[in-house]
């Protein structure tokens, strides 16, 4: 298996994308919560809520780091390992990604820098507005990435000229049903991830009777609200996507005839991909069922006034984030294996899209980035858990304590 560059390149991309999405989902889920908390804090000049913003913001930043690291590897890997996609769909697939990097990521990262370094230096509304821009561009970023992804699944808006896709209808590209439905699905599942994380971290501290500024008392309630808000939209936006199943995309037949497509699909052995897809589907569905049950239980315990007190209930809530993470990864595995053997359905097979790599090159690239991601992703998760447990004292954004005396600098030449 390890001597087949195609298997390695696919596995490498799957691992990169899955790692990336874990951290992206956290970003998308936590951003609205921080935004609202900071808005209330600024509006009421509430120092206690602002300390909560520092705490959650610290977790946001530790997580964001890994989101960027995996995101830039993913962007470059598309170019390096999947040049066939670039050659045939350069403009159609690349244009949304160009917009994503410029109009979304560029602005997002810059304003996040302003938000970090503008603390206590900017007006409070200007500082909040920085995070408003960060949140807005994070979602804009998700939208444009899904526009690029949507083309793969539901190719539309272009014609084929000389074996190359030429953009014909930009509106069909940006309003691609596969992209738009996936965007709302991602947005609602992000609420589940964010809600579960906020509720779990709050529950951890409440179970230990550690509730400075009552931030975790509010946190577990906000997390519950986010879960309740996210549960139904998730299943609705997910379910509507099945309406595209079994239908021919509008550009079917432009590259290959129906017979050729059938022959390619028959000739390819997609049994492994299908098995992965079925497993992903099952994980996603069962995790969703458990999340809705958990959301209901949280609401019930809230009504019974036990949400900040009942330790036996709070302890298992700490493990709640495992569910939406499992569902998210399962959902992506399902979506991406579903169109195999195609990378662009009916136009370009995954095998043809790959750069012509020697087995040694593919193995070197795969080994390095897999090990690096395992180490960096593991370190980030460990740091997140550590700062979440530590609470608002000493987090990454905690205000600097009074300067302590430092040893006199000794310069060694």
């Amino acid at each position, binding site marked *: 298996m390890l001597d087949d560059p195609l298997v390695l390149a696919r596995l490498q991309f799957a691992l990169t994308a899955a790692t990336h999405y874990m951290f992206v989902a956290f970003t998308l889920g936590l951003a609205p919560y921080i935004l609202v908390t900071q808005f209330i804090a600024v509006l009421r000049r509430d120092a206690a809520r602002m300390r909560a913003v520092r705490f959650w913001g610290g977790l946001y930043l530790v997580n964001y780091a890994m989101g960027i690291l995996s995101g830039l590897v993913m962007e470059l890997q598309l170019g390096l390992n999947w040049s066939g996609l670039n050659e045939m769909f350069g403009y159609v697939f690349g244009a949304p990604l160009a917009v994503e990097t410029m109009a979304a990521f*560029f*602005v997002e990262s*810059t304003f996040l820098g302003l938000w970090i370094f503008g603390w206590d230096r900017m007006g409070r509304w200007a500082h909040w507005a920085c995070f408003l821009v960060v949140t807005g561009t994070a979602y804009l970023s998700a939208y444009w990435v899904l526009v690029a992804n949507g083309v793969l699944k539901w190719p539309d808006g272009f014609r084929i000229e000389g074996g190359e896709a030429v953009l014909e209808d930009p509106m069909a590209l940006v309003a691609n049903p596969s992209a738009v439905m996936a965007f709302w699905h991602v947005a609602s599942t992000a609420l589940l991830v964010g809600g579960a994380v906020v509720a779990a971290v709050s529950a951890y501290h409440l179970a230990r009777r550690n509730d400075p500024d009552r931030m975790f008392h509010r946190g577990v309630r906000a997390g519950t609200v986010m879960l309740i808000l996210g549960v139904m939209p998730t299943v609705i936006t997910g379910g509507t996507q099945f309406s595209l199943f079994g239908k021919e995309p509008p550009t079917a037949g432009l590259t290959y005839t129906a017979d050729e497509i059938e022959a390619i699909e028959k000739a390819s052995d997609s049994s492994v991909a299908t098995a992965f897809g079925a497993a992903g589907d099952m994980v996603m569905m069962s995790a969703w069922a458990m999340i809705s049950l958990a959301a209901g239980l949280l609401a019930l315990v809230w009504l019974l006034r036990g949400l900040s007190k009942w330790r036996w209930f709070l302890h298992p809530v700490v493990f709640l984030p495992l569910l939406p993470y499992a569902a998210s990864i399962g959902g992506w595995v399902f979506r991406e294996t579903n169109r195999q053997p195609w990378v662009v359905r009916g136009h370009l097979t995954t095998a043809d899209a790959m750069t012509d790599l020697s087995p040694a*090159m593919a193995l070197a690239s795969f080994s390095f980035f897999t090990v690096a991601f395992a180490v960096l992703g593991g370190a980030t998760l460990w740091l997140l858990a550590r700062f979440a447990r*530590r609470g608002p004292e000493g987090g990454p954004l905690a205000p600097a304590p009074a*300067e302590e005396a430092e040893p006199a600098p000794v310069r060694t030449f």
Partner: protein
Amino acid sequence: MDTVPVLFLTGLVVGYFVLAGCDIGLGMLMPYLARTPTERRRLVSAAAPYFLGTEVWLVGAVGVVAGLFPELKSALFGGLWPVFSVLLAAWLLRDAGLWFRARIDTDSWRRACDALIVGGSWVLALSWGAVLAGLIAGGAAPSVFTVACTLAVAALFLLRGAAFGAERLVPAEAGEAASADDAGRLTRVLARVALGAAAVTAVAAVLPGAAAIERPLALAAAALVPAAALAATAGLSGPRLSRHTSAVAIGSAPLLAAAAQALPLDGPPAGVLALAGIAIVPLVPLMAVGQVGLYRMLRRPAADTGFFASPPAPALPPRRRAVPDPAIRG
């Protein structure tokens, strides 16, 4: 309207080299400029806020190349796959070092992160040198020219880092500014080194069979710009001028590749351009406000503490408190 996307891309690439040259160069110089833990913390706190704002220029450039210049992307990544893979690896590890350094308060953790920052910065700068050498020579085959050009570009990064360090390494409170003084003195030395490396590169370029340069005259004319900037920095008033001359020198480096070879810079079809324009142009003011705001805020000397240079944090709280807090109600 082919010129607009080309200018846009040029701006992104030049902007990346000018701005990221600061934090990459400073990372390379870390072992020399920062020898005590305090100095190292100050150096990271000087460089780290920049990388967040500077690497987006490269991400943007990669996106624009992918979306608006797919042929250029094939030309770049096809011929230089190994170099770009190493560059990506170095970028990843360097960023990881910068992000993670302040998160754990132990010496061994900081040493490991410093190693990633220094090693990553060096490999990143050398990879950029190899990329530019490969583009100018029309192929990445190792030769005297490739090696000399790679080292010359690395020297430009070092010079940019030293010029940046001379300003940013001044402590916020009055006192000894040894790192900043060292960096200031280093600019003149580095400018001479870079000038020497550039001269060797020029000689290597005219050696028979060394490099297949399509437009040698255009390249020679374009090379006069960084050469003049380096010569100005190498003189007695070099350190004073270095902030601007180092920017000119490193900013013109990627343009030499465009001068030497006819890169596939045909603009995108009208539909793609319209889509990108409509989606990007409304956000350009926001990009400008954000970037200008960020660099204005970071213009003053680096603070000793902050997100990327946290002071020691208190230990973890006890896992369980014995006495329930009466303030918590249901």
